[in-house]
């Protein structure tokens, strides 16, 4: 009796694994098609601009506010810890490096996934459910070129910009708490920061990270929407999957990129 249950479970596990691999293959084909069909939206940039509004501009508020708060918390906590070693003048370094190297790309990536990513999945899933994608195909317009590709490029462009805005707001938040509120020295805050934060090593690496996250999140969001079952439960499940998978992907990629980029330092 016990043996039978175990065998059935293993078989189910095997099925699910094979299904996942097949689905990943399908998703990769989808990614390739998106890239190949991007020519159309580069010739008609207003399509990308429109999507930039919905992904980038509408995420601005949450990014600005979150960046400010994260920076302020960093200021508080950083001060507490550094003060015990008498190094509170290094607060600027702490805040800036934490944001530019890690928190900026990662947290704004997670926020982007839950706000813009889930919206993209829901929108495309709904278009599939109401047969809008089929109607487009019937009118000899490729939905991947017309609907998916513009959103993809808008997401890839938005992410690094949002991460930069997050980091900048965060530094300002750290400054507000550290210098204005607590009283850390203004000059050493900025000067130590400037000597410790390197353009190539820290800022450029941070931008590279956010571009990678942008590609991952947008790809996942668009694929889940495109592949969702055309029902209400299907779309809602797809939206949840987008947020979960994107978040895990961001954290996983962050580890890989960090290990690779910040090896020697």
């Amino acid at each position, binding site marked *: 009796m016990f043996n039978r249950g175990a065998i059935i479970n293993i078989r189910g596990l095997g099925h699910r694994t094979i299904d996942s691999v097949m689905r990943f293959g399908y998703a990769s084909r989808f990614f390739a098609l998106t890239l190949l069909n991007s020519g159309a939206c580069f010739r008609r940039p*207003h399509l990308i*601009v*429109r999507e*930039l*509004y919905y992904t*980038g*501009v509408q995420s*601005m508020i949450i990014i600005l506010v979150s960046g400010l708060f994260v920076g302020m918390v960093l200021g508080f906590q950083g001060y507490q810890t550094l003060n015990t*070693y*008498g*190094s509170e*003048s*290094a607060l600027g370094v702490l805040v*800036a490096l934490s944001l*530019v190297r890690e928190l900026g790309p990662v947290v704004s990536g997670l926020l982007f996934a839950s706000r813009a990513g889930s919206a993209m999945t829901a929108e495309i899933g709904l278009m599939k459910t109401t047969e809008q994608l089929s109607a487009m195909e019937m009118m000899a317009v490729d939905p991947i070129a017309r609907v998916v590709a513009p959103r993809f490029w808008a997401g890839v462009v*938005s992410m*690094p*910009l*949002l991460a*930069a*805005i997050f*980091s*900048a*707001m965060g*530094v300002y938040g750290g400054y507000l708490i550290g210098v204005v509120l607590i009283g850390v020295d203004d000059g050493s805050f*900025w000067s130590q*920061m*400037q*000597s410790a*934060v*390197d*353009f190539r090593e*820290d*800022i450029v690496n941070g*931008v590279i990270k956010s571009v990678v996250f942008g590609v991952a999140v947008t790809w996942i969001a668009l694929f889940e929407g495109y592949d969702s079952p055309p029902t209400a439960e299907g779309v809602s499940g797809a939206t949840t999957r987008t947020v979960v998978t994107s978040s895990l992907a961001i954290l996983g990629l962050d580890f890989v990129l960090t290990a690779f980029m910040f090896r*020697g*330092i």
Partner: protein
Amino acid sequence: MERSTIDLWVGLFMVAGLGALTILALKVGNMGSVGSNETYQLSAEFTNIGGLKPRAAVKSSGVVVGRVSGIIFDNEKFVARVSMNIDSRYKFPQDTSASILTAGLLGEQYVGFEGGAEDKPLTPGATLKLTQSAVVLEKLISQFMYSKADGSAGK
């Protein structure tokens, strides 16, 4: 949504994003300072480099004049060879001394150039003769303890 309104907001977004990137690059990072200036190489040998790492600063009178480009161990002389890229604007006399100093208690270690009264400057590729190795905390403590022990034994 009107097309023109969308264009406006997207334009503002792009400006904000690129502006944030620029602010980060200039005010937060060090792109403004030692950027793509011409440099020349100098070397120095130390018995102990302590925690000195590549890309550490080389300072004179507290001002950053260059960067450490590489550190290798010389197996024949059993010393550490530190190569440095120095900004071409600055020339140092032949008898300049290089010491490994620490910025603050927990700070990073850097190379400090001091003194020098000779007329002739160091040529590119030259090696500094006078060096002072890093202060290793454990040696300092053991020195202190031995001297205390000597002092109390001598009484």
